[in-house]
C-alpha cells in the first residue's frame, strides 16, 4: 500500500484508459524489461517469458482501470503479475512432469549479458549474490520457484524453522545493506 500515488503512474493510467497508443509504447519501453526479466527469472524459458510479457501488457492495455495507483506503483504491480504468471506457468509444467520433485530441478543458467545495466539494479543483484549460499538458495526457491517455506525446507532438507528464519534474515540483510548504500523508499534507476 503506497498511499500517495505516483504522478506519472496516474498520468499513464488516464492516458491508457483513453486509448493512447504512445502511452502503451511508453509503458512497454519503461517496464518491459522488468516484466520480461521477472518472467524469465521464474520460468527460465525465453518463449514463455515473452508470452507472459505480452499477456501482461495486453491486459494492461485492455483494462488499464484495474491498475490502482493508490495501492501500488505501476512497476511493482506489473512485476507482481509477471511473477505470479511465471509461477503459474512453472506449476503447470511441473504438473506435466510430475515425476520429479519441484524445487530440485536444476534451472538452466541465464546469461548475464542482457541484464539491464543500471547501478541501482546491480547494487540489488550484488546484495542478493553476496548472501550466504543457504540464504540465497532459500530466496531462489521461495521467490522464483513459488515454493512455500515448508517446501523450501523439504527441498533443502532443513527444518521448517530454519527455512523461515533464512527467508526473513536474507531479506533483512539485503534491506540493511541497500539502506546503508543509500536506497530509500524507491528504487532509483539511472
Amino acid at each position: 500500500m503506497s498511499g500517495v500515488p505516483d504522478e506519472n503512474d496516474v498520468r499513464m493510467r488516464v492516458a491508457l484508459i483513453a486509448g493512447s497508443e504512445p502511452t502503451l509504447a511508453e509503458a512497454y519501453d519503461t517496464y518491459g524489461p522488468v516484466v520480461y526479466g521477472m518472467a524469465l527469472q521464474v520460468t527460465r524459458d525465453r518463449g514463455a517469458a515473452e508470452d507472459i510479457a505480452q499477456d501482461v501488457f495486453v491486459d494492461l492495455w485492455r483494462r488499464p482501470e484495474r491498475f490502482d495507483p493508490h495501492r501500488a506503483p505501476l512497476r511493482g504491480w506489473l512485476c507482481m503479475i509477471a511473477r505470479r504468471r511465471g509461477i503459474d506457468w512453472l506449476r503447470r509444467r511441473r504438473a506435466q512432469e510430475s515425476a520429479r520433485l519441484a524445487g530440485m530441478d536444476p534451472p538452466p543458467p541465464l546469461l548475464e549479458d542482457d541484464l539491464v545495466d543500471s547501478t541501482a539494479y546491480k547494487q540489488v543483484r550484488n546484495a542478493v549474490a553476496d548472501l550466504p549460499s543457504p540464504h540465497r538458495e532459500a530466496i531462489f526457491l521461495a521467490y522464483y520457484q513459488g515454493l512455500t517455506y515448508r517446501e523450501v525446507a523439504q527441498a533443502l532438507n532443513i527444518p521448517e524453522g530454519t527455512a523461515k528464519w533464512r527467508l526473513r534474515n536474507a531479506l533483512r540483510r539485503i534491506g540493511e545493506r541497500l539502506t546503508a548504500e543509500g536506497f530509500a523508499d524507491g528504487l532509483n534507476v539511472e
Partner: protein
Amino acid sequence: MTDDRHADDLVGPYVMAACPPDEARSVADHASRCPKCAAEIAELGRVVEWIGVAAARAPAPELRARVLAAAIAARPAGDAYEDGEAHESSEARRLGELYHGQVADLDRLLSGLSQPQWLLPSGPHRSVRDLIVHLHGSDGLVAAVAGIDAPVDRRASGSDDQLRWRRQAGAIIDVVTRRGARLLDRPVRLAGRAAIRRPLREALVQRGFETWIHAEDVRAALDLPPRTPAGEQLADIVEFALPLLPLAMETAGRGRPGQAIRLLLTGSGGGTRTVDLSPVAGAVVAEIAMSAQQFCRLLAGRLHPPFTDVRIDGDIGAVDDFLTVAATMGCD
C-alpha cells in the same frame, strides 16, 4: 501462530507469498492489529520489490512490435487522444451515460406502474416503493460527495418516491458529466454492508449496477422478461467487483491466501481474469467458466445454485468459497 503472538520469522515467507494459506491468514490478521509486524511487512515487502525489479532484462527487440500489435488487436487505440483532463472528462461522460441509461430504463418501468403494482414485493424488499426508497438512499452516498443536497421531501406516494429518486439520480449524472474530471478520484463510501471507500468512478459503476438489478427486480415482480445491459457496462461491473473480492473473502472468513481462481467470462463484456482468494496473491487452483451477465447477476445475489451453464474445474472448496462471497458483492 496465534493472534497475540508476533509474526516473527513468518514475515519473510509472508512477504514472498511463501506461507501456507492458513498461516498467511494468521499473519494478515495479526498484522492488521500490530503496528510492529505491519512495519516489518512493509519494510521487507519493499526489499522483495527491489529484488523483483532488479531482475530486469532487455527483451528481444522484436517483442516490442509483437506486444503492441497484440494489444491493438485486443483493443483499438482511441481515435482522438488528448492528454490529461480532457480524458478524465470523457471517462466521466461515458460513466454518466451508462448510468443514465439504467436510470431512464427504471424510470420508464416505474412510470407505468399502477398503485397496486407499487405494493408488489420486489427483490429483497417488501414493495417496489420500499425498493425505490432504498435505492434513493444508496444513491445519496454519491450525491453527498458530488455536492448535491438531498431534497427533503415528505413521502406521500410511490410516484413521489420515484420523482425524488429520479431527481437525485439526474443531479448526479448532471454533476458528473459537467465536472467529472475533478470528481472521479474523490473517495466515496460504497453502498452495501461493508463500509468501503473507493473513488467516485467506481461508485458510479456501482450505481449503474444497482439500478439495473433493481429494474430487474421490478421486471420480475411484473412478470416481464429480464434485460441485460451492454457488454461495456457488464465489463465495468466485473472490473469494479473483482478487485474488492480478495478482501471480501478475507473479511468473510473464507480467505485462501496463496490461492486464486481463473474466471473465464464468456459473451458480451467477457474476458479472462485471475482473482486472488485473499489479499495474499496466489496461484490458480480452480477455473470457473460462465457468461459475464450471469456473473454480474451472481454478484448481485440474484443467481442462485444449482447453476446451469457454469463449468467448474479444480478445487471445489475454493470455488464454493469464491461463489459464496461473490454473491454478497451487490446491494440489498
